[in-house]
């Protein structure tokens, strides 16, 4: 009897290893490539009581995603802040200047998700936003829609995140006031992601 049980151990161990390896092989999140020409990253803010809009035309994305393996999924965005564009040269220069984004010293911003979770509407990425030299917790909400285009699997990722600009020091001196430029900046994105 004892020998019987002892003999079963190696088999069980083998089965466990096999199960684990097939599970991870089936759900290892694939890395998607950003289709920069069909993707936008924009920000809206209140200026003098009116909604205004700008965009970050240059950013890179490291996105690996599997719906059944969110723990191993990854979302990491690096934004070229200096390339910001609000369709107004004078305002862009002001935004790039020391009191606001200070792009000479902090040319990039980065969001790194540490945890992806499912929500009622889609997903939420909790992580860290590093902006103007300040790192703070930030949450990003997004939804995904998959499609097949010319035989390729693509994902459309749409979402937003509310950034409190003063938490990151975007607004020094006069610009600390929120009377003329609101404290809340909504970052929205529409991305086209191509499966490997």
């Amino acid at each position, binding site marked *: 009897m004892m020998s019987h049980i002892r003999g079963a151990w190696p088999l069980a161990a083998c089965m466990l290893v096999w199960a684990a390896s097939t599970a991870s092989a089936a759900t290892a999140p694939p890395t998607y490539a950003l289709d920069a020409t069909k993707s936008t990253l924009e920000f809206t803010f209140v*200026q*003098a*009581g*009116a*909604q*205004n809009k700008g965009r970050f035309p240059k950013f890179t994305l490291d996105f690996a995603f599997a719906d059944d393996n969110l723990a191993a999924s990854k979302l990491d965005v690096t934004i070229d802040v200096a390339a910001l564009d609000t*369709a*107004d040269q004078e305002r862009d220069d*002001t935004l790039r200047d020391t*009191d606001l984004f200070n792009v000479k010293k902090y040319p990039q911003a980065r969001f790194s998700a540490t945890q992806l979770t499912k929500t009622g509407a889609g997903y939420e990425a909790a992580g860290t936003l590093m902006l103007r030299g300040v790192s703070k917790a930030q949450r990003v909400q997004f939804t995904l829609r998959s499609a097949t285009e010319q035989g390729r699997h693509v994902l459309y990722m749409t979402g937003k995140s509310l950034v409190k600009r003063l938490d990151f020091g975007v607004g020094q001196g*006069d*610009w600390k*006031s929120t*009377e*003329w*430029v609101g404290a809340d900046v909504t970052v929205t994105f529409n991305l086209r992601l191509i499966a490997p």
Partner: protein
Amino acid sequence: MLRNTTVRWGGVAQFFHWTIVVLIITQFTLALTAENLHGLKKLAVLATHKSIGITILMLALLRVLWRFNNPTPPLPATLKPYERFLAHFTHTALYLLIFITPLTGWIMSSARGFPVSWFNQFQLPDLVAKNRPLYDFMVDTHETLAWTLAGIATLHLLAALKHHFVMKDTVLRRMLPFTKTP
């Protein structure tokens, strides 16, 4: 005494007249101040200028509606035909300018891509799509109209003073509060 009579402007017409006078003077002060500012201070001054401009536009609209629903005190019968023509010309021009000047400012803001709000209370729709050449043209137009308004208003002021001190009629007094018109 709120309504006009055939000899005197009523309280409402006087309110429109003098409020718009004060607001226009404020507009010149703000616009000229903004030229020497930059950054947030310029933004704040120009935002106030826009809000006051919209206020003038709204008051102008109400003022014209009020005028059409009230008697208009006539010009003195003693005026010569050319004086009568000048009076009508300056009055018509001033009425037009208190509409067109704010409107060109509004178009200018829209064309620049900076939507207009009214004292941070509500945002106004854009009158035109963003258009840099149109913006540049509107900057010049708005400025020219503003100085034209200042010039015609000066004529209007001089004429009012001439009526009061030279012709010694009631034309100035009937637009002044706290005065009596026989």
